[in-house]
């Protein structure tokens, strides 16, 4: 593999927002992952849709089934969940429960379910169980964000314990379909065998390099733009490039292949990371041609994030998706001041982003942070 020039995080982040803002809005919208997409744009969905359909058929025939959709943040769990509503649960009553912030106390989950299922005076999980079992029709419950139902703290598993009770007691009346981020799932599986609460588990982040290319190209092909890939210094010096010099079409094919190889390597099957990096790679728009700059991975090693406390903070964020200052206190057993300093320091360096729901990892450095934590044996 040829040597790739990497850029520092601060330069990378400063340029990224600006570059993406400069792109035509119609093109940006095609890559907006928060928007609903057609089935034809969703890569590798058919297998998962078919498998969930089978589980649903089994539930309809009286076999108690429940489904978990697992994948990294940004790997398309919510998109798949939305597609399932149209493709599988078309004529079925669906109740959506989206967990937007950490809900680890028992009263929090009871209140959430109480308002979602329109049940009053809920004090115990059994009240939810009785109310759901008393429903006249069978329903589908789409529970999004299982990773927010716990806190890695000695008292942080009460909400999950209540959920397991509710799921196991209502499986015949309710078809439970939940989404969970991969690393929270793996943690929960190791500590309390979360897998045993679901009859079917599907993964959305097992995309190959080819799939990642399709994710990008399916969206790009809906636009009117042509692509022109640029070569970097190392590629220009390579024999493979030189021998194609007389054939511009072959050169473009070759550069495209190299670009998507590198993109596949760095994103490791994560759709969201791939789309952001793709938009970041568009150097300029010349008429109806997009000039694609050579792929430059961002280098986070230059940041001073290798300190132990910082690494454990990042690991906590990866395990919970989002965390507030007070929640990080509980997870790492720190004081409020210590937690705030750790989080704001990472935010000021662009590694974390703060929103109302808490701090979460910047998608631009998601893959690099995961690699770093795996290398340090902190996440497996």
């Amino acid at each position, binding site marked *: 593999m040829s040597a790739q020039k990497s850029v520092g995080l601060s330069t990378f982040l400063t340029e990224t927002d600006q570059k993406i803002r400069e792109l035509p809005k119609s093109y940006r919208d095609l890559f907006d992952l928060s928007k609903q997409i057609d089935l034809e744009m969703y890569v590798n969905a058919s297998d998962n849709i078919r498998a969930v359909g089978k589980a649903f058929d089994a539930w309809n025939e009286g076999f108690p089934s429940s489904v978990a959709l697992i994948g990294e943040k940004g790997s398309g769990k919510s998109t798949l969940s939305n597609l399932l509503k149209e493709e599988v649960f078309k004529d079925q009553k669906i109740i959506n429960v989206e967990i937007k912030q950490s809900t680890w106390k028992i009263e929090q989950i009871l209140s959430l379910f109480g308002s979602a299922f329109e049940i009053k005076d809920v004090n115990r999980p059994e009240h939810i169980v009785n109310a759901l079992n008393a429903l006249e029709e069978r329903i589908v419950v789409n529970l999004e964000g299982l990773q927010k139902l716990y806190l890695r703290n000695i008292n942080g598993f009460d909400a999950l314990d209540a959920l397991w009770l509710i799921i196991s007691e209502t499986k015949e009346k309710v078809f439970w379909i939940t989404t969970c981020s991969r690393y929270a799932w793996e943690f929960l599986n190791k500590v309390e065998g979360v897998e045993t609460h679901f009859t079917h588990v599907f993964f959305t982040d097992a995309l190959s390099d080819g799939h990642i290319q399709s994710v990008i190209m399916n969206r790009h092909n809906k636009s009117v733009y042509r692509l022109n890939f640029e070569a970097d210094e190392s590629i220009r010096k390579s024999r493979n490039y030189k021998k194609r010099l007389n054939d511009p079409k072959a050169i473009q094919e070759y550069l495209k292949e190299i670009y998507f190889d590198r993109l596949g390597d760095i994103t490791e099957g994560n759709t969201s990371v791939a789309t952001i990096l793709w938009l970041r790679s568009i150097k300029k728009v010349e008429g109806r041609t997009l000039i694609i700059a050579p792929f430059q991975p961002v280098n986070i090693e230059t940041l001073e994030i290798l300190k132990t406390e910082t690494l454990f903070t990042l690991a906590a964020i990866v395990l919970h998706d989002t965390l507030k200052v007070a929640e990080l206190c509980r997870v790492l057993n720190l004081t409020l001041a210590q937690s705030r300093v750790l989080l704001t320091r990472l935010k000021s360096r662009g590694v974390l982003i703060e929103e109302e729901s808490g701090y979460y990892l910047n998608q631009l450095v998601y893959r690099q942070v995961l690699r770093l934590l795996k*290398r340090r*044996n902190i996440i497996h």
Partner: protein
Amino acid sequence: MKRIATYFMFLVFSLSSFALSAQDSLSTVQADSALTDSSNVINLKPKIVPFEELFSTGKIISSFIVLIFAFLLNRFITFLLGKLAENQASYRLLIKRLIPFLNVILWSVALFIVIGGIINPPVETILTVGASIGIAVGFAAQDILKNIFGGFIIILDSPFQVGDKIEIDGYYGEVTGIGLRSTRIVTPDDSLVTIPNADIVNNSVSNSNTGALDCQVVASIYLPADTNIDTVKEVAYKAAITSRYVYLNKPVVVITENQVIDKNYIIHLKVKAYVLDIRYEFLLKGEITELILTELNRRQLLPSSVPFKPVES
């Protein structure tokens, strides 16, 4: 980094130049000894090389320079590998294990260049000197030789490696270096303990992690006999799995033992968990203990003083 690379290139270049010049002198000496051999056929008398010729000033200086280069190169490689190991947690132990092997190889090459290439004594001299030194050193430096042979045995037998946590002779700590004479470990209170290799070979060695990055940690809590065991075990398990230092690819086990101390019943709670990096061993142990005690105190399950339950006589 560039400066280090340049320095490294300079060292390699200098050492290879010396090796080449040593080879040249070796072939010259071989040619001389061939002549000597043919003259031996005629004279039937072994030629005795004068002492001044064998240890001429030039040869001593050359040998000295080669040994200094070997020493510097050794230190340099050890430094580089040490730095590299610290930046690669997953390969830390593997990289550190290479260091003693490289030390032995480097010193062997240096000695070969000095004896075979620079001094180049006749075989008879080697045998005579060897025998004399053998007898003298055998009597005078028995312990040193024992340690050196012990060092070879440790390297070949590998009961532990650099980076492992071992206990020997009452000392527990991380192995930081395996030398030809001694092995060095750093104890949890940051003391450097140097243990002669002969002692290690002749004693039992307990190795906590045997090359792995993780190792088992046992946190012990002593509780009154009438404690609610189920609750305490649940708290202990959750304390272990929520510690940031725990390695969850291996099981967390909580066990209780009933013990009688000073005619009193005591519950001995043991939490066995693996730490994700042996460097956090005591941090994990401390965190589990703190979390359990804090939670038991919060739930008022711990009395302020331990009320022992006397054994009925």
